[in-house]
């Protein structure tokens, strides 16, 4: 679009990028399915102390895959990522602190 | 601009004058700037420093504004083109006045932390007390329970109770205490008293400004706090967390006494209430589920016992009368003031009203008025399905005067000095 390109001289980052192929999306979905399978398997297989950390790591991985690939944060303008991750980060910090004041982690 | 400076200086003067006046005001029983105990004194020292620092900074800013206003004031620009040099900023200055306040705040922060740690630490100060003839080592502790709209103080003398002992217990099911009183907390002077603050309904806040800052009474929580009075005396307080209708009328007092007087107080409070002559049979029958009637020539106080049994026992407790059958008050909070030693206290209705007149006589007028229609003296919600606050019982004048006669016998009369020190108005 000419209008867009013409303003590239401001801080514009043109919204032009290669989208992954459908096959790539299917492969990503398969990876997500596998991780979910692993997560669910922890319900049946006792893995002891590493349970909660590994669950959280797998959760974060899935979260990251969906927002970067399915929501295109990987390809899209940086400002989207900043806005969304800003909210996410703020929520994380604020509520971790809140739970801490209830001595939540001690229990 | 001249106006502005005059106004500002008048304002500054009036604020200063006000601070001075507030220091001299008579009867300023809640004054936060007149500490009467070590904790409040520590807080006061810290606040004095920050008031001075803040005042100086504030004064400097105001003087700067006034000075600049005078010096650079030109009025409406007649000549549009006369512009002063256009200065956009100065990084050195900016960084300077970022770092300088940060340094000032760091100093204040260190002082704050030191005071904070000290205010929140407790000392081991067990004292020897006699409880029913046996000597106990007692870490002075009072469980403070707020409810709409009065304070209960529970003393566990035979065990050193801590907040963690109570964790998970509802304040409505507290373990039985050795002494339960309301509106007035009696403590030994010169001793640090641990408080365990909780509530039976909504959030209240317990505050005796002369002795320490406040601590919220939160239902489901047992918050530690402490108070200590340097000398025997009476220290006033007021609930400071909005708690509904009669928040303004929820008051309390701390009565600090000598160790000897405190031991005497324990001794009398540990006794069950004395039964007025002529009502012994009635009370004995009531306690054994039997029946008995008063003699025809029974005194007013004895008739008052009967009136108490038939009108008051669904909420109030008198040790020695209905303590065997008492299961808690028919109130939202589940509690009403323990009346066992009512007359040994000098206030009632949430430390709102005097139980004795300043001349030392029993205040029949206010107590009668209270029994006649509590809501006229203190707003409450006694008409809800379950009452909050003392309901209007619709008592006859005769019943009321009997009750007053009985209530005035409950406990030894306090000294005239104590009556006068604790007068509320």
């Amino acid at each position: 679009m000419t209008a867009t390109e013409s303003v590239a001289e401001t801080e514009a980052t043109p919204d032009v990028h290669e989208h992954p192929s459908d096959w790539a999306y299917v492969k990503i979905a398969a990876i997500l399915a596998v991780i979910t399978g692993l997560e669910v398997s922890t319900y049946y297989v006792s893995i002891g102390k590493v349970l909660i950390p590994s669950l959280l790591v797998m959760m974060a991985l899935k979260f990251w895959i969906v927002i970067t690939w399915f929501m295109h944060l990987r390809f899209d303008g940086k400002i989207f990522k900043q806005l969304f991750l800003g909210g996410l980060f703020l929520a994380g910090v604020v509520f971790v602190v809140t739970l801490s004041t209830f001595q939540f982690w001690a229990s | 601009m001249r106006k502005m400076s005059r106004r500002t200086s008048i304002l500054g003067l009036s604020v200063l004058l006000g601070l001075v006046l507030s220091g001299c005001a008579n009867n300023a029983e809640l004054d936060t700037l007149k500490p009467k105990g070590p904790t409040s004194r520590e807080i006061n020292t810290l606040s004095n420093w920050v008031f001075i620092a803040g005042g100086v900074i504030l004064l400097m800013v105001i003087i700067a504004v006034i000075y600049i206003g005078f010096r650079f004031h030109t009025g409406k620009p007649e000549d549009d083109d006369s512009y002063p040099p256009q200065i956009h900023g100065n990084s050195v200055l900016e960084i300077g006045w970022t770092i300088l306040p940060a340094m000032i705040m760091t100093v204040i922060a260190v002082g704050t932390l030191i005071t904070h740690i000290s205010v929140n630490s407790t000392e081991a100060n067990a004292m020897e007390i006699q409880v029913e003839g046996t000597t106990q080592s007692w870490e002075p502790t009072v469980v403070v329970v707020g409810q709409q709209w009065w304070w209960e103080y529970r003393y566990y003398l035979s065990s050193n109770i801590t907040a963690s002992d109570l964790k998970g217990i509802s304040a409505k099911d507290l373990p039985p205490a050795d002494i339960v009183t309301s509106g007035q907390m009696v403590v030994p002077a010169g001793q640090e008293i641990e408080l365990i603050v909780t509530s039976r309904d909504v959030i209240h806040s317990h505050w005796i400004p002369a002795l320490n800052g406040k601590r919220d009474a939160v239902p489901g929580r047992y918050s530690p706090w402490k108070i200590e009075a340097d000398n025997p005396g009476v220290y006033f307080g007021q609930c400071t967390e909005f708690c509904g209708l009669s928040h303004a009328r929820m008051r309390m007092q701390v009565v600090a006494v000598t160790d000897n007087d405190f031991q005497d107080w324990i001794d009398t409070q540990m006794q069950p209430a004395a039964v007025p002559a002529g009502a012994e049979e009635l009370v004995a029958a009531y306690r054994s589920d039997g029946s008995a009637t008063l003699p025809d020539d029974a005194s007013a106080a004895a008739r008052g016992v009967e009136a108490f049994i038939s009108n008051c026992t669904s909420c109030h407790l008198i040790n020695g009368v209905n303590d065997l059958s008492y299961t808690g008050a028919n109130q939202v909070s589940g509690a009403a003031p323990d009346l066992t030693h009512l007359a040994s206290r000098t206030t009632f209705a949430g430390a709102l009203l005097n139980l004795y007149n300043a001349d030392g006589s029993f205040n029949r007028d206010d107590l009668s008025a209270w029994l006649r229609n509590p809501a006229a003296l203190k707003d409450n919600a006694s008409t809800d399905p379950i009452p909050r606050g003392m309901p209007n019982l619709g008592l006859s004048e005769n019943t009321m005067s009997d009750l007053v006669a009985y209530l005035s016998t409950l406990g030894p009369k306090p000294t005239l000095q104590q009556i006068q020190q604790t007068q509320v108005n």
Partner: protein
Amino acid sequence: MAIVEKPLSIGTSEPVLADRPLGVLTRPKGGNGWRDWLSTVDHKKIGIMYGVAAMFFFVVGGSEALLIRSQLAVPNGQVLSADPYNQVYTMHGLTMVFLFVMPLAAAFANYLIPLQIGARDVAFPRLNALSFWIWISGAIFLNSTWLVGGGGADCGWFCYSPNSGVVFSPSHGVDFYAIGLLILGIASLVSAVNLITTVINMRAPGMSWFRVPVFTWMMLVTQFLLLFALPVITVALFFLMFDRLFGSQFFNPDTGADPLLWQHLFWIFGHPEVYIVVLPVFGIFSEIIPTFSRKPLFGYSFVVFSGIAIGFMGWGVWAHHMFVSGIGPVSVAAFSLSTMFIAVPTGVKILNWIATMWGGKIWFATPMLFSVGAVTMFTIGGVSGVTHSLAPVDTQQTDTYYIVAHFHYVMFGAGALGLLGACYFWWPKIFGHMLNERLGKVHFWLATIGMNLTFGPMHILGLQGMSRRIDTYSSGFGFALWNAVATIGAFTIATSLLVFFYNIWKSKKDAPNLPDPGPDPWDARSLEWMLPSPTPEHNFDEVPEINGLDEWWHRKYGYDDDGNVVRIATVEEAAQKGDATNVHLPSPSFWPLVVAIGMPLIGYGLIFNLWLAVPGGLATAGALFAWALEPADDPDAHHGGSHDDHEAPALTGADTNEES
């Protein structure tokens, strides 16, 4: 979101012809009296409506304040009994925060942001109208509790549980509180999304971030605070509503709930809310003080960064409202320290404003008086704020009148007075005539003296031990003198407000006989002053190319070889004429109003009878669909009278770059 609104299309050569909207309401054409106001999507008209409504609620909240002060004027006052007192002070707080200060700031934000960034309108004009209508319906809903809810909410604006539960607050007041604030929250959230998008995306060519006027900057920070704070209070309000209406157990301590959860959620919102109130005023100071000092803002980037820093740090201090609630000494210490250091960026701002005045040529016109006065009042409030960031000291001060004094110095002394000063400053831009200067100065002095008489003594009262929220006090505590003074002060403030209203009326009446103020009566610095007064409907004839900070000032003035300021163009030469035709403007719409009307109905339905919610829900949902199907621009519409969007645009650079 089903509402996918197309961005403004300006000067299109080939308008998108969409289908006619559903037949219920034809797309209004605008320009016909009251219907124009109901269907307008013009940010300027919406801003004016915010302002008018906010001033109305200022009177409401002010009357409540006078009732409070009358009751407390003497010991054992008899004006209000406990129950009405509790309702009045609760509604006073809610009205002043949510229905006066915030919307008055929103009024200026709406009016000024597009002008300051050189835009035609906000990014989503219809969503902008939606915000306003939802806000006004929430405001009416909240106040309707006086008539249909059995009195106002009686739990304080902070509404701590469990006192807010049905058992302790049996009237419907608290239901109106919860649902009313939810509705108001939707309005603010929509507005935040809209304005953030506007500032990020609608800046004129060349307006890089460090050329954005400080008012717009501060409003942007404010909108971010709203964006992130509102969801938190939303959660809390839903919990409260579910507890009260459906019997859930969020705040019932008897079943193991913790009342402090409410406090955390409330203050995670409530503390940023404080900055939501004052940051816009910081922006206003930063516009007015340079203008009347005839100097650029000292340390622009530091003022901007300290505003952003305040926005960030505002998220880390909420529990200082809970120092005495038993959150534990470690938490208290942490929040005490974080609170202290928020004083640093605040101090930086104050020093920069003072430095701006230094070496200037100061003209104490009414807006400048208000701003300097408000900065001073803010400093007093800031210093008293520092005193209670010290947790041990705060245990004596919290919940006393000392706190009342502190936040009124901030919210009224800085917030309200700053906004009133802004009224004087931008009045000619908005209405095309000046407000009377002499009456303005009377207003300022009365308001400032009144405010110091009212809130100054409260410092003393608080230190004397007078608790907040008490409806009466005994004569023995020594509170009588200063309460009497405070009450006199409150009536002085009320008088000053009457002077302001008289000024509005008189200035309007006198305007035809006075010289036209022109586009730039104050010799100001930012873009809105290059437009004719009042601002033409289409804002800019052509979107200006931005070459620097204070663009408008630099179009008027340059420097000679010695670095002295010289005029390079008169206002008449530099200003836009406002006579452009053929500007394509967004079409008005009734749907925002209809969506908003449904919301209070849903609220009444939840409280009284769920059947009532049905028409409300249908109205809201139906209007949303109709809205989505309505074309963003009605091809048949004529906008702004003479503007005809079918012609090829006569504008250069109105929508695209000159180079294109």
